[in-house]
């Protein structure tokens, strides 16, 4: 007879077999047996957070920057409900998370027991799948399946709810059979014919554009390499969504910058005027498309995505290639080379005019802002931060709001997995705990959270985690005392009625840093900025940087409500003729 293990031991045996190195968690009554077992498994390190939401975002940061699934361990009731925001965030941005939650003993389920909640019910709409383990015999199978579901296809979060009696119950354990192929199921459903069709479209296009997204990042670093090869082979321009930044080098000449609501003038105009739009691992999010009826009206549209339900969900496309981005792009490149179609040369004439047009748009210099000697402009702060850290392999996380858009616009990424931001759900408070997770995955690298003072206060308690584990994360706060994006919309859409968007009583971030046991730095004037940033980067330990910026700065360019891609507000000088009126105020 094989040896018997408790449910808690089984949990760790499964995590070991899945090569899990870190768990982000917080103990509580219903997970005590699992925590009791932790000491016997020294290959698995537990990171104690200060709030379960922080555990979830830290696991997201870990997953996004390392390509491995993030593992979260929380207790029943409030432990589970606190992690819901992070699960939803991971679901929206396709981040693989495995969340293990404790549950009250089986016989108490449904009795409104202490710290009981319907965890699988609550998390059903924000996970790819979830399980309530009712028999310890099913436990190992379920945990291994959970990892499979989280990491295959379009990645996402899953949750395994384990009642306390199951954690004590004993059962045998056998190692999982490692499936080489997912029951022969491949996510790829495209044929050579589809590839040929695409290449034909590319051959005939005069105004092509690639629009790449987070799918390229999720497909692994190799996908970014193949993407670069494809762009090189074709000579086509490329733009990227917020989540896709870093898949293609941000400083390359063929890169038009980010597109969408706060994207560049050239990227959005190219999207509007193109005759061939090739979407690579993006999902036509509403912040990208703007007004659907007038979205890229003259183009043939191609969509490459691993998730069949993404195809034709928002924008009808002419050609869909369902599959892993890496595999699809490889097939395209292979065919391009085999047919010896050097599109770059043969197309040079054809798309030369297109590039001329793009250069014209570029001269608008849409990311331009009026700098100042008196106050620090937030864009300037991000630019200086970029210039002073670009020689290092820097990882950047953000919170949500103006600072996030400025970071996306002015910080250039050259590698995938270096940029972690909450795009789909737009979770304020994401960046700080995410930075904790990133630093865990990359202990020697420079990790910066470009933050807003409002967002960062939502999960500030995780500084305590950073201090506990000596994680030298840098919290670079663009402090404008406002919920900046709310303030901007109120200025543009609500007659400058700044209702509740000003924070009256902000903490002294320097003292706060000291209270947490880390370093606080403050910058007020543009001329001290460089020196202070250097001080932050060189300090070996966590830093909270209070960068006092102009409180009235708005984030431009911006596609205002009611307008398509080719009608953007470029900045203060252009604002006058772009008044937003009437129903245009009904922004989501």
């Amino acid at each position, binding site marked *: 007879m094989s040896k018997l293990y408790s449910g808690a031991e089984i949990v760790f045996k499964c995590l070991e077999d899945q090569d899990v190195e870190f768990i982000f968690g917080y103990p509580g009554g219903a997970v005590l047996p699992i925590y009791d077992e932790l000491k016997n498994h020294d290959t698995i390190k537990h990171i104690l957070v200060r709030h379960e939401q922080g555990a979830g975002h830290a696991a997201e940061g870990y997953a996004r920057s390392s390509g491995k699934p993030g593992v979260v361990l929380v207790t029943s009731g409030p432990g589970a409900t606190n992690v819901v925001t992070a699960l939803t965030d991971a679901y929206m941005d396709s981040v693989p998370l495995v969340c293990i939650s404790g549950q009250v003993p089986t016989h108490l389920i449904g009795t409104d027991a202490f710290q009981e909640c319907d965890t699988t019910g609550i998390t059903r709409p924000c996970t790819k799948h979830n399980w309530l383990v009712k028999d310890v015999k099913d436990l190992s199978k379920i945990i291994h399946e959970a990892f499979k579901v989280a990491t295959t296809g379009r990645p996402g979060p899953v949750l395994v709810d384990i009642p306390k009696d199951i954690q004590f119950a004993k059962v045998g354990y056998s190692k999982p059979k490692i499936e080489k192929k997912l029951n022969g199921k491949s996510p790829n459903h495209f044929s050579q014919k589809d590839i040929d069709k695409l290449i034909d479209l590319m051959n005939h296009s005069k105004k092509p554009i690639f629009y790449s997204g987070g799918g390229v990042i999720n497909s692994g670093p190799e996908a970014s390499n193949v993407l670069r090869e494809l762009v090189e082979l074709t000579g086509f321009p490329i733009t990227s969504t917020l989540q896709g930044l870093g898949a293609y080098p941000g400083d390359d000449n063929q890169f038009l910058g980010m597109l969408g609501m706060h994207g560049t003038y050239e990227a959005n105009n190219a999207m509007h005027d193109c005759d061939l739009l090739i979407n690579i691992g993006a999902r036509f999010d509403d912040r990208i498309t703007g007004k659907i009826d007038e979205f890229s009206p003259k183009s043939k549209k191609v969509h490459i995505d691993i998730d069949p*339900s993404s195809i*034709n969900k928002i924008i009808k496309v002419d050609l869909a290639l369902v599959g892993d981005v890496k595999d699809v792009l490889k097939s395209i490149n292979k065919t391009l080379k085999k047919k010896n179609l050097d599109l770059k040369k043969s197309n040079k004439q054809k798309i030369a005019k297109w590039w001329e047009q793009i250069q014209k748009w570029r001269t608008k210099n849409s990311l331009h802002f009026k700098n100042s000697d008196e106050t620090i402009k937030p864009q300037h702060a991000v630019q200086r931060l970029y210039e002073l850290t670009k020689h290092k392999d820097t990882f950047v996380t953000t919170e949500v709001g103006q600072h996030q858009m400025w970071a996306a616009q002015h910080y250039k990424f050259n590698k995938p997995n270096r940029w972690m931001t909450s795009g789909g759900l737009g979770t304020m408070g994401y960046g700080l705990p995410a930075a904790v997770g990133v630093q865990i995955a990359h202990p020697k690298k420079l990790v910066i959270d470009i933050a807003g003072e409002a967002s960062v206060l939502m999960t500030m308690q995780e500084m305590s985690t950073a201090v506990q584990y000596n994680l030298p994360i840098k919290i670079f706060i663009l402090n404008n005392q406002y919920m900046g994006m709310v303030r901007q919309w109120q200025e543009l859409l609500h007659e400058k009625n700044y209702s509740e968007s000003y924070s009256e009583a902000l903490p002294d971030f320097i003292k706060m840093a000291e209270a947490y046991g880390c370093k606080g730095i403050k910058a007020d004037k543009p001329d001290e900025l460089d020196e202070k940033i250097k001080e932050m980067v060189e300090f070996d330990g966590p830093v909270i940087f209070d960068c006092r910026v102009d409180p009235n700065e708005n984030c431009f360019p911006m*596609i205002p409500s009611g307008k398509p891609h080719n009608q953007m507000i470029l900045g203060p000088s252009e604002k006058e003729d772009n008044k937003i009126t009437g129903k245009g105020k*009904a922004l989501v």
Partner: protein
Amino acid sequence: MANPKSAYSVSSKKEKSDTHIIVVWVDNEAGVLARVVGLFSGRGYNIESLAVAEVDAKRNISRITIVTTGTPQVIDQIKLQLKKLVPVHKVADFKRNDKGVIFKEMALFKVVGNTNKIKKAINACKKYDAVILDKTKKSNVIQITALRREIDKMAKSLRKFGLVSISRTGAVAMTRGDKVFN
């Protein structure tokens, strides 16, 4: 601008909605119905009727039949989203007016009244395979199987014959001929 609508919340031109019958084969496990129904409510799809029962005890498979309405784009999304659910094995979709598919619903009518009225009620039900399930001096329970609109019609016309209670199922569907949906 002629039509200043919001760029981020305007729905595009509405296509025509059609009624479809979606058949879903799922693992018969705890919470599976909640996953399917939650998907519909969470994404704003509507459910006109629902029928669900285990059809294969050995393989532990249940068959869920859902009647829904939607534009072609919405129906496509429903199918694709359903296929993403882990316990879902396969999804079939039929248009309500598909001649190659049989649709049936069942209804129970309780009629209370004198013999004459009850007789008339039974007569009215005859063309829908009426079965008398319970009989007393003052009442009858009649079972019919028919299409939704036929049951609607009967429910209306039986009122004058002493109909006091109706219980009905959602539609179930099956293809005609020897074909099996795979």
